[in-house]
């Protein structure tokens, strides 16, 4: 297992390097001079500007600049936010937990819906339940998250007034009241994100279970006299999960994309809304850092998927 993990890690590192190279190339290719604003400022003499350019190595060859940037990123020196006047890494560290909480809970909700529904649908293919589930899955992933978010706000906040539509970190309550408020404000964002993912996961689970359920070993398990429940849970679902894990890992980029949208709708102070506000404020260091953090999160979750994969399918670990 340790060996396997190490091998996966050596796969993950080059892709992180590749992503950082792409990011840096984008920034270097883009027009615009980070010190362009200084040129129009009459209070700054040209010599100072020149000194700054040399200090930050703007005129160096691009590979050297990339190397400097990478070393600085690895040292945790992520730059300084123009807009918020704090170090970028502190700004991001404040906000990552919120994003992870929302995305993680939404994933759990998605799997909690998709696994049973997909399995039931595959146990009786083309039954009424299967068709209803399939239709709902289609509706689910055709409804963009920004529209479902608005719909939920319209129904539950505007018309019914049950749930708050602004996510707050500083809830003015304590004890159980605090937990209740915290739970209430998280319901809508997590539902929006979770159900959107659940729709596509349901289809994955259904087709994976369908592939497995007709295999001979399942018939064997049944003919041994095992209870149907045991056959499905222990024999079918475990093997069906192997392709599902891969597909879920492939969905990670779009999960974080959906997180950006939901954070924007419900004003959740996570890194997604930080990215949007940084873009609107032309805050380049924050934009680069957040994009890189998103890339790292995707790679991290892919690594996690690989570990789960190794656990589900012991054959992989020995290879």
């Amino acid at each position, binding site marked *: 297992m340790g060996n396997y993990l190490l091998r996966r890690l050596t796969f993950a590192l080059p892709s992180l390097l590749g992503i950082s190279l792409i990011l840096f190339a984008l920034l270097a290719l883009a027009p615009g001079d980070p010190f362009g604003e200084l040129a129009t400022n009459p209070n700054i003499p040209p010599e100072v500007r020149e000194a700054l350019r040399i200090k930050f190595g703007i005129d160096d060859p691009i590979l050297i600049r990339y190397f400097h940037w990478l070393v600085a990123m690895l040292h945790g020196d992520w730059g300084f936010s123009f807009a918020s006047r704090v170090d970028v890494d502190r700004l991001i560290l404040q906000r990552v937990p919120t994003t992870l909480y929302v995305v993680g809970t939404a994933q759990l909700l998605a799997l909690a819906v998709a696994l049973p529904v997909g399995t039931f649908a595959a146990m009786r293919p083309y039954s009424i339940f299967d068709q209803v589930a399939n239709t709902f899955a289609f509706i689910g992933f*055709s409804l*963009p998250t920004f529209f479902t978010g608005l719909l939920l706000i319209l129904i539950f906040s505007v018309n019914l007034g049950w749930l708050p539509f602004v996510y707050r970190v500083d809830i003015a309550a304590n004890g159980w009241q605090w937990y209740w408020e915290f739970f209430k404000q998280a319901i809508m964002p997590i539902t929006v994100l979770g159900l959107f993912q659940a729709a596509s996961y349901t289809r994955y689970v259904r087709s994976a279970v369908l592939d497995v359920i007709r295999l001979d070993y399942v018939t064997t398990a049944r003919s041994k006299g095992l209870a149907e429940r045991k056959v499905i849970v222990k024999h079918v679902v475990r093997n069906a999960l192997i392709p599902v894990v891969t597909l879920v890992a492939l969905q990670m980029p779009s999960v974080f994309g959906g997180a*950006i949208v939901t954070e924007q709708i419900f004003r959740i102070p996570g890194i997604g809304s930080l990215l949007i506000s940084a873009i609107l404020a032309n805050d380049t260091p924050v934009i*680069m850092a957040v994009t890189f953090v998103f890339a790292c999160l995707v790679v991290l979750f892919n690594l996690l998927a690989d570990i789960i994969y190794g656990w589900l399918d012991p054959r992989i670990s020995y290879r």
Partner: protein
Amino acid sequence: MVGLTHASPTVEAARPVGRRDRRFSPWREAWRRFRRHRLAAISVVVLALLALSILLGPLFWHVAINDIDFTARLSPPSWDHPFGTDDLGQDLLARMIYGGRISLAVGFAAMAVAMFAGTIIGAIAGISRGSIDATLMWVTDLFLSLPQLPLLLLVIYLFRDILKNIVGPEGGVFILIVLVIGGFRWMPVARLVRAQFLSLREKEFVEAARALGASNWRLVVRHILPNALGPVIVAGTIDVAAAIIAESTLSFLGLGFPPDIPTWGRLLFDAKDYLDIAPHWALFTGGAIFITVIAINFIGDGLRDALDPRKVM
């Protein structure tokens, strides 16, 4: 031996080839299978109606998209304004017709970019063995693990101004959005095409063509590619829906087309601050996106059934 095993026994055996209209081309067969997917058939009609009304709408509905009328501010649907008006009293029907053109154009253009790039990369990887194949697949996997929406936002943020200066605000953003959305969606197509190539290039008919002295280029274009097209078409259909959602998402975040161009996402972005007093605004726009996307997704599902020769229907 080969003559005895049919790929799909029931379909080929059961059909009498007697009358002339029972002629039997792959496309006709696909169409027959497609029609049996009822939701897909309905979706084609819905999408065609939608596209027609978007294309021909301005001929019948003469209200300008930027006609400001403060007396009819935020008014609900009425005979004068079938879809109501927005916060400046602009007619929503006219604006949605305009936005629909952009959404559909972006969807199809981005799909074309993704299919083009994906097919070329997949074909190169599939036909060449060894290091070229490995490198291209590594790049594909790398792109698959990129966080797409943040990068989309980053690219648009960085390159918006330069393209605006070259091609004008609307055209520049259109080209940028199409290229970027297409540029982040070619990977599934490339993988599909490569997988198809890997199995097809070992088939007897390709071997036969090669034995007859066909060049590599001819093998790919005449023999392998047409046979690999089925899954690519399905992936392309779903890409249209994904591109429409991606464009609306960008506009919804306020970072797509310029604010004065009413794309569907932009309309929703503007509508979200008036949910309590003018819900019709968000509902009509979101409904339009939803109907378009679900219709395209159902068509993709129908095509999957229709173009999969292993599936017996």
